[in-house]
């Protein structure tokens, strides 16, 4: 049964709609990532789930019980959760007192508090900082204090808002390790907001895409990244090649799509005549200097129109009757001598093409 369920949730600040018709359910022990660009409403949704704000409309169920819009019960339920805010706010107290305060508020005994706090400080690697004022810590350390302060409460639900935003890669890795450790060891239910898709992919069991206040798609990482539901999601998850086309034939699930005069093969159940988008991830296309016969159904002669070096990868734009963006490693870009004007063969599988229905826009 789901631990948290949100139904028909709407939220507005004055005239502006922040969240529209959110329906979401998260199971006990599940790690759910909310991904979306900045300003999509991720933080507001987390705040509402943590009962910091009352939604304009809609209900929240916790462990099967509908949460009232005011009253003492909200505090009792809030005490079963913990929320790690985007910018860690440490209190102007010692590291120890910061971590101990939540237990104190729950009326825990002094001796038990000391034991728990020491244990958790060791876990996040801050045992030597116990007596330091938390305000004197670096950003990464402060985030670990914030994490320790929440974890020591052994919450049933942990809400994380961009837990690694503004952190250096080393601190980010530490925090991510801690999060996945807690998720595995304690079976803590987590809802995590992030704009970092790889983080969502790495840590979450299930992902929800929040765009402009609407939960556009939920599913596992493969669903979201391979089969985005619409153009917006496809753009957001880094599907750089989104090409308009029309299905001209469908032979038992293998569709032929006409893209400005070129025919490509894709896996789809849409019937002939359907207007579609063909989406191809740039890393799913391979480039070769000569034509190879392979199991891949789609192979086109193309001309390189632009090459951009992005560290270990190169982003190559080609034209094969329609434009495509391809990601190749820097080494293969050098081996292929990829330069503007060079002729190459671009190859991708029928299963590497995701077909989305194209709605006629209003």
């Amino acid at each position: 049964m789901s631990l948290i369920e949100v139904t028909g949730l709407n939220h507005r600040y004055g005239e502006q709609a922040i969240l529209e018709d959110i329906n979401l359910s998260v199971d006990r022990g599940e790690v759910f990532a909310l991904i979306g660009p900045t300003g999509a409403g991720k933080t507001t949704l987390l705040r509402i789930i943590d009962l910091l704000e009352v939604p304009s409309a809609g209900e929240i169920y916790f462990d099967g019980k509908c949460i009232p819009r005011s009253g003492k019960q909200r505090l009792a339920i809030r005490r079963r959760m913990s929320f790690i805010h985007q910018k860690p706010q440490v209190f102007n107290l010692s590291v120890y007192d910061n971590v101990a305060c939540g237990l104190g508020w729950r009326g825990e005994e002094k001796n038990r508090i000391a034991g728990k706090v020491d244990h958790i400080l060791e876990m996040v690697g801050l045992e030597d900082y116990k007596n330091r004022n938390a305000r004197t810590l670096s950003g990464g350390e402060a985030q670990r204090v914030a994490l320790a302060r929440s974890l020591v409460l052994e919450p049933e639900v942990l809400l994380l808002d961009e837990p690694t935003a503004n952190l250096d890669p080393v601190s980010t890795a530490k925090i991510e390790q801690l999060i996945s450790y807690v998720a595995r060891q304690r079976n803590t239910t987590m809802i995590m907001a992030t704009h970092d898709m790889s983080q969502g992919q790495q840590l979450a069991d299930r992902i929800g895409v929040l765009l402009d206040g609407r939960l556009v798609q939920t599913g596992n990482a493969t669903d979201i990244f391979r089969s985005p539901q619409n153009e917006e999601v496809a753009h957001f998850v880094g599907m750089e090649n989104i090409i308009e086309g029309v299905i001209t034939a469908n032979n038992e699930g293998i569709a032929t799509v006409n893209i400005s005069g070129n025919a490509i093969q894709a896996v789809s159940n849409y019937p002939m005549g359907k207007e579609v988008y063909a989406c191809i991830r740039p890393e799913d296309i391979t480039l070769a200097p000569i034509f190879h016969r392979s199991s891949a159904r789609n192979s086109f002669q193309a001309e390189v129109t632009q090459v951009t070096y992005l560290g270990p990868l190169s982003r190559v734009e080609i034209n094969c009757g329609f434009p495509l963006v391809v990601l190749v490693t820097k080494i293969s870009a050098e081996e292929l001598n990829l330069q503007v004007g060079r002729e190459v063969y671009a190859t991708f599988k029928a299963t590497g093409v995701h077909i989305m229905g194209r709605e006629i826009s209003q």
Partner: protein
Amino acid sequence: MEIWDGLTKAIELLISLDPEVMEIAGRSLRISGAACLLASLICLPLGSLIHFHQFRGKRALISTTQTLFAMPTVLVGLFVLVLFSRAGPLGEFGILFTPPVMVVGQILLISPLLLGFTISALSGVRREIVDTATSLGASGFQTVWLVLREARYAVLAAVIMGFARAISEVGCALMVGGNIKGATRVITTAISLEASKGELALAIALGIILLFLALIINIVLNRLQQR
């Protein structure tokens, strides 16, 4: 020279811990200390209440409080005198010209200051701190307590300012206390009387004590602000 003469005698009085000087200074500290403590007990919770609640007229209330920072001490004295005079609404207590009524007067005098500075001290604590405490499961009261602790240096500075204003005022203490020797005479009223009598030594000795207190208060405030 008269001043020089007075100054040497004053230092003699201080060094010999003259009983009259010590009695007057002790009374000043007790009365203003009590006033400051009681005013803090009223104003810190009241200030928190005002800060954490949204209501109509909140802005106006805060502006009024700030205006009253500069309330003339004699005006407070007049108000308390009328209130506690034999025919006044609180006359039956019969505490006019006793230390308790001086405490009441000083509480009224410094309350706006304490209230205003408490509110601004709490406003200095970021909204996110309050949210963080709430998410960590603090009840309303626990949140207020945490925020007061976060603002502790600014709040303590407010309390010290209140004490400084109480101990250095003369108008109210004179009007409602009556400057009765051995009963309601405090540093400021004694200085005023002794100076008008031409007894400079005692006035200067008490003045030095008052300045010394001001110095201590200033040092403590500076220390707090550097934290």
